[in-house]
């Protein structure tokens, strides 16, 4: 029964789905094998958050993480393999409903950042997590995750710009 389920390795990984639901929205879903309060805790406690937000498998290093999890409270994440080359991500929490719902702004990119909303829905001891990102414009979402730009510097920024320009034109023709 329960004991058996517990003894099973957690390696039976759940599926992560990503869908662009509109020009300005991205939705990510994932189920976790634990109650919502636990998933929420892992999302709102800096010491825990730092353990998973920057997966080592992707070569990311999260150097520090501060979060003041309440409406209007700020967070600040600093990434970087060494102290001389860091990159900060920051914003404010706009909704905090313990174990249920969390929303924050992403302000590092000025006006182009999305509002991210995460809902935690518990069912039968499991939690369905839905992460929703609403971007201010289609262009801002198009640009998210294109790349390379920040990591590899100016050359790639130019490349990105060129591809965007070309794409825009090709799209209109």
């Amino acid at each position, binding site marked *: 029964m329960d004991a058996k389920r517990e003894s099973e390795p957690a390696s039976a990984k759940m599926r992560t789905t990503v869908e662009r639901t509109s020009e300005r929205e991205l939705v990510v879903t994932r189920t976790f094998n634990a109650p919502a309060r636990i998933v929420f805790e892992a999302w709102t406690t800096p010491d825990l958050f730092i353990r998973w937000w920057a997966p080592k498998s992707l070569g*990311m290093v999260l150097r520090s993480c501060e979060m003041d999890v309440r409406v209007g409270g700020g967070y600040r994440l600093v990434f970087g393999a060494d102290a001389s080359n860091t990159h900060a991500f920051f914003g404010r929490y706009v909704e905090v409903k313990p174990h249920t719902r969390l929303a924050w702004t992403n302000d590092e990119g000025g006006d182009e950042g999305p509002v991210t909303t995460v809902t935690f829905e518990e069912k039968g001891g499991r939690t369905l997590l839905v992460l929703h990102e609403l971007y201010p414009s289609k262009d801002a979402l198009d640009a998210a995750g294109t790349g390379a730009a920040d990591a590899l510097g100016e050359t790639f920024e130019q490349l990105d710009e060129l591809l965007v320009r070309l794409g825009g034109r090709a799209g209109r023709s």
Partner: protein
Amino acid sequence: MLILNYMVQYPQTRFDASFAALSDATRRGVLEQLGRADASITDLAEKFHMTLTGMKKHVGVLERAGLVTTKKVGRVRTCRLGLHRLEEEAAWIERHRRLWAARFDELDKVVEDLHRKEKVDGRKKRE
């Protein structure tokens, strides 16, 4: 937290080919030109003050990177922007999916630890 913008998540080989193709000013010019209208290799050679052979080489590089496709009709080879952009769409989703999947696989471990701890603590309290 838009870390994706900070990461390099391109499939390496294609990225290399695209980057190599775009590292040349003439080839960037050719792409801009083709963004405005399809053109033959002859047109492009003239526009960029180049020999036909030179332009063929440039177009070949762009073609291998998927940035340009060519089609020969009679004696004229016409160039147009490639399907690269469509692949980009799929790659775009895949980059996001890969990031979140990697994160959530790590989050599984954290959640599992907490869950186990909570059970042990609960048992202790009951004892």
